[in-house]
């Protein structure tokens, strides 16, 4: 069926809830309202208020209660309405979700999937546009996943819901309804911890994820017209990171460009560039470049375009890389 990312996420949730009664969805407005983006639409009617729980407006307790549910064998799927509101729950995530398996030597695990919309580009209110994925990638024990299309969204979410590790599942709001795609009706997994080469090219490698993938594709098409073949690696799981896939690509192309919406300093681009330096230095024909948000607070909608990396900025970096 042709569907949006929202429909794909909704279908993954419904199918896994049908298959596994340990899965409980909880959060603000996930019940009767079906979520502010409608990702949980229909679940309340189908599975009832015990499995699709509208909670008090309290992010720390939403995650904290989810942790407690796992002690009794449940697999909760808490939704934080926007990533900008996840910080009250940061203590629960960093101090408990990420560590429980290790600090109990495997007696307690935390198989929960925290879903949250993230990223800029939709002209939203303040606090609704940040991409702070790197904060979570610094925490051992967490798996951080970002889909870039409806097919991956369904398969990655299904894999996350079946994972025994805690997953932070970041849903790019800009892509929620941006693109429709053929998505299989039956349940399937897109494996976690595996990047994908989504466009082949011989001249340079673009490493990106989420909403930067469509932007990178547009830039790559423009570069193609100039005779430059750009390969694109969609990281998909940001942590633990599939380093082999992009290192192999850079060894082939000799040039690398990392694109992310998050600010430049201490962003994942730094980790990726360092990995390329460690593993593919002698293959490089140019320094690794980054196209990112600047190290500033994401501007309000009127000025968001100044911050947000788009195809033009990516193309400019491609030209620089090729001219080096």
């Amino acid at each position, binding site marked *: 069926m042709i569907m949006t990312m929202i429909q794909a996420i909704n279908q993954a949730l419904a199918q896994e809830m049908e298959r596994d009664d340990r899965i409980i969805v909880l959060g603000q407005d996930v019940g009767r309202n079906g979520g502010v983006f409608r990702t949980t639409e229909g679940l309340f009617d189908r599975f009832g208020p015990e499995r699709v729980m509208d909670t008090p407006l309290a992010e720390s307790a939403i995650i904290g209660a989810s942790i*407690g549910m796992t*002690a*009794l064998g449940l697999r909760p799927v808490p939704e934080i309405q926007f990533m900008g509101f996840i910080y009250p729950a940061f*203590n*629960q995530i960093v101090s408990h979700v990420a560590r429980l398996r*290790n600090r*109990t030597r495997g007696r307690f695990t935390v198989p929960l999937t925290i879903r949250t919309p993230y990223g800029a580009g939709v002209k939203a209110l303040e606090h609704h546009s940040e991409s702070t994925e790197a904060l979570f990638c610094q925490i051992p024990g967490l798996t951080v996943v970002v889909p870039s299309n409806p097919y991956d969204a369904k398969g990655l979410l299904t894999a996350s819901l079946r994972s025994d590790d805690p997953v932070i599942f970041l849903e790019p709001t800009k892509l929620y309804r941006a693109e429709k795609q053929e998505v299989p009706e039956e349940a399937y997994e897109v494996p976690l911890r595996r990047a994908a080469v989504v466009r082949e090219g011989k001249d340079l490698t673009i490493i990106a994820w989420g909403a930067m993938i469509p932007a990178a594709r547009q830039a790559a098409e423009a570069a193609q017209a100039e005779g430059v073949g750009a390969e694109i690696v969609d990281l998909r799981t940001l942590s633990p990171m599939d380093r082999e896939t992009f290192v192999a690509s850079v060894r082939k192309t000799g040039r690398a460009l990392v694109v992310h919406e998050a600010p430049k300093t201490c962003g994942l681009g730094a980790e990726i560039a360092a990995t390329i330096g460690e593993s593919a230095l002698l293959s490089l024909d140019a320094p690794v470049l980054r196209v990112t948000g600047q190290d500033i607070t994401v501007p309000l909608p009127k000025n968001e375009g100044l911050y947000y990396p788009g195809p033009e900025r990516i193309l400019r970096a491609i030209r620089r890389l090729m001219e080096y």
Partner: protein
Amino acid sequence: MIELFDPLKGERLRVLDETGGIAPGLDPGLAEAELRTIYERMVRTRAADAKALKLQRQGRLGTYAPSRGHEACQVGLASAMAGDDWFFPYFRDLGMYITLGYPLADYYHLWMGNEAGLRSPDGLNIFPIAIPVGSQIPQAVGAGLAAKYRKLRIAVVTTFGDGATSEGDFHEGLNFAGVFRTPNVFVCLNNQFAISVPRARQTAAATIAQKAVAYGFPGVQVDGNDVLAVYAAAREALGNARDGRGPTLIEAYTYRMGDHTTSDDAARYRSKEEVQEWERRDPILRFRLYLGKKGLWDEAYEKAVQDAAAEFVEKAVAEAEARPTATPEDIFAYTYAAMPPELEAQLADLKAFLEEGRR
């Protein structure tokens, strides 16, 4: 009984007075053997606590949070719990652990600095100690929600200090519990101090128990140095939780006789006179006086209890110190269900480094 003591009127449940006299109408009616078991647990707790302090001073155990003065709260509460109830502890709960059957050797092993000691034995429903203050409270509520969902007739207990009641997680957790009427028993061990900051700096409310009123469920303040008062309140609250009558907040009014931890010096912020005043209200002494009046205590019994406690403690120390230290694999293997390649590489690098050192 809980509803007879209105925290908004400053009423406090007390069963035993300081001379060991009992308020007849409030006697929880425990059998003689049960009373003695409670006493023996309290003595063991104090012995195990004193030993931990000694080990810390000898450099055999790390920073430690002593429990002295809290024996009535801990043993009274845990003695009222059933085997399939769940417990979400904080970090000053030794008597809970001893009463619930957590191996003391494991407990020492943890405070000696090894994660393996934090692994509850299978079948024992104890979540690991929460160090970030108050963070265990919403977790206990989640376990309560799960118990409701699975239609289990159990209660979920969580403990915390007076400082934790200022944390957002206290509010968020109790608010959740009220909304969903979860089978929780929240027990605040109000020991008058959060490290050095006195109880008066945590809240302007006259009691902590009265905060329950705003969450829509009962709260009761009990004399935390009276093991029978703690037991009686806990038994009723646990029963209410198991029977679907919702959560309860119990404030156990007590005093931290020791330092906050072995890194603290309480003499900097409280007077000798104040501490001496509380020595007079010692929970073990009070219960001993009660047992004596009932003819359940004499010198010979005391010696037997103390000897058994000492043996229990020494055995646990020997066992904990005989435990192997962790290997590099141990500290890497439990980060994820399956180790990612980057971690495998880092583990291999660490092992190579250690190997080079040996050559």
